[in-house]
């Protein structure tokens, strides 16, 4: 069985600051990491493989050449091989152009794919759109926000426990299918030395635009349907009242006064 995990390298956004004068991101010293939700997706892939040893896990990432380090981490965490999809011609791709490119890679490199796992969203863009768009382009059913996954006994379907607004529900879909992960049981585990060493022997292949059955005007910015016209800092937050050094009773009184004056009690 073939299981593709699509992953993205992202800046660790908790450390991203904005230059107040230019309104642009200060990226110096900001580490690039494997998007946490993608890591959850990989966790699920590894656990599915533990239960079904014939599964081959193929990690795929589209990004600049340095996204290779995110794929190395995937290999360390249990992917069998990895594909880096990188080309200047992919630059500026919106979610549609990204999905179209990734779908073309999967079609070409893993035509017999049974299951595609993705993270529920990337923490930099937060769109949560690329997964469903890949599924639609490849004509697969999708199950989003998965927290537990298993194959049904006849191994024709994937069963997913997923988060919904009122709790959870369990859905099944016939494979090939695409599933997004919103949580993993194993949180951000560290690979062992043996994992790191064995990862170096696994295949990490590069794919460029020339390898795909797509025309150039379907790629990158030219192939994108949306365009960013302006990037700017969020409106400055209002200045509120901040009270320090009060005894608990005095602090409680201030809060009560605030609640009363604002009409909440």
């Amino acid at each position, binding site marked *: 069985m073939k299981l593709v995990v699509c992953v993205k390298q992202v800046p660790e956004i908790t450390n991203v600051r904005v230059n107040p004068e230019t*309104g642009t991101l200060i990226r110096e010293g900001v580490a690039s990491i494997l998007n946490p939700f993608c890591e959850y997706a990989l966790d699920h892939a590894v656990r599915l493989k533990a239960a079904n040893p014939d599964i081959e896990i193929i990690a795929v990432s589209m990004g600049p050449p340095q996204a290779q380090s995110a794929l190395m981490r995937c290999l360390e965490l249990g992917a069998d091989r990895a594909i880096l999809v990188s080309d200047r011609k992919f630059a500026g791709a919106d979610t549609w152009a990204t999905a179209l490119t990734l779908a073309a890679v999967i079609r070409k490199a893993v035509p017999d794919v049974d299951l595609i796992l993705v993270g529920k969203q990337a923490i930099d863009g937060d769109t*949560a759109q690329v997964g469903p768009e890949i599924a639609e382009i490849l004509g697969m059913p999708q199950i989003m926000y998965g927290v537990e996954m298993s194959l049904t006994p006849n191994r024709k379907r994937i069963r997913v426990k997923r988060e919904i607004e009122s709790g959870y529900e369990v859905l099944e879909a016939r494979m090939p299918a695409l599933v997004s992960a919103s949580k993993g049981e194993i949180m951000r585990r560290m690979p062992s030395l043996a994992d790191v060493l064995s990862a170096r022997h696994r295949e990490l292949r590069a794919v460029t635009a020339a390898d795909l059955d797509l025309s150039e005007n379907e790629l990158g910015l030219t192939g994108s349907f949306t*365009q960013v016209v302006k990037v700017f800092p969020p409106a400055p937050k209002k200045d509120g009242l901040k009270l320090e050094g009060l005894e*608990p009773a005095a*602090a409680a009184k201030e809060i009560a006064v*605030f609640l009363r004056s604002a009409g909440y009690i």
Partner: protein
Amino acid sequence: MLKIDHPICNLCGLCQKSCPFGAISTGEEKVTVDERCTLCGACVNVCPQSALSIERRQASPEELARYEGVFVWTECEDREKKIVPRKVVYELLTHGRRLADRLEQPLVAVALGDDRMAGLERLCHQGADRVIRCRHDLLGGYSTDGFTTALAAVVAKEKPSVLLFGATPSGRDLAPRVAARLRLGLTADCTGLAIDDQGQLVQTRPAFGGNIMASIVTPYTRPQCATVRPNVFTAAEPDTQRSVVIEEFPVKLNKASIRTKVVEQIPTPAEGEKIEEARILVSAGRGCGEASNLDLVRSLAHRLGGTLAGSRAIVELGWIPHTLQVGQSGTTVGPDLYIAVGISGAVQHVVGMSSSKKIIAINKDPDAPIFKIADLGVVGDALHILPKLLDALKSD
């Protein structure tokens, strides 16, 4: 690709400073751009010499002008054996009315469901000129396949100019399927929507966890599609004088085309009202120390007639279910009053609650980022302050 007209470039370096991705460097002789460039265009706008350009595809205005109308997907929810539109739909219709008026085009609500659908008149009272109702037994509960097929059919036939979805879990499941099926541009999780002088929808959304905002247009494809965060726009009071027009739109669906099946539903016991719709939320974070202290927070919520919520941290600790999680990977809330108890206010949390009308924060750390957005910030130990506050409120 980014084009640099080297002969007219004066090496001023503004493009390098403006680049959100650090992709541009100004050398002694020329400016170079590397593979980190995403073609976002930030540099093109700042270049005083107009030496930078990005080739963008053009579509004819005549082609685009054939599409007309602002359409809103009417997401419904179960209520007392009926399925009725949920709150975010009224928010979208209220703002959609403004967009439609600016475009001088109709506002249309598209409701998909089975025969239990009810309360659709209110869609017109909230601003819609008409409702397109698609009824089918297979649309009784949400499924990606069933809803994508039905909505894509409506859109392909009606050819609207704008199509809006609430950025709810189902909205974010459905919108990219419909957009990909029809090969349309889609912008996720917008917090602002406006019409520019060319009649284009300008979609504004936060990125990088709310550290930066981006305005996005969809120049070549119609309808221009966007998902919109709940609680960003305020729903107007319904106007019951508005005339109600409901049209049937027949769709053909068959069971085999819905490739997922629901095996089991596992509801989480509710704390009170849904946090997305609550007027008052008292929200707990890791600073509350341990799960048993949540009783204190819950008591305050109950005293104020509100609901308990919490940060991602305490969901992961298992103190509260994910249904109560506020923030980027939880629910976007916009109550009248949000009290953050022991929440530091990481960007991922703040983007999910910053549209609250009033914010009170209690935290031990005077440098906690939550204080930057609080109307009233109290530096102190919530576990000591809350009992006193409950006493103070008791005496009222």
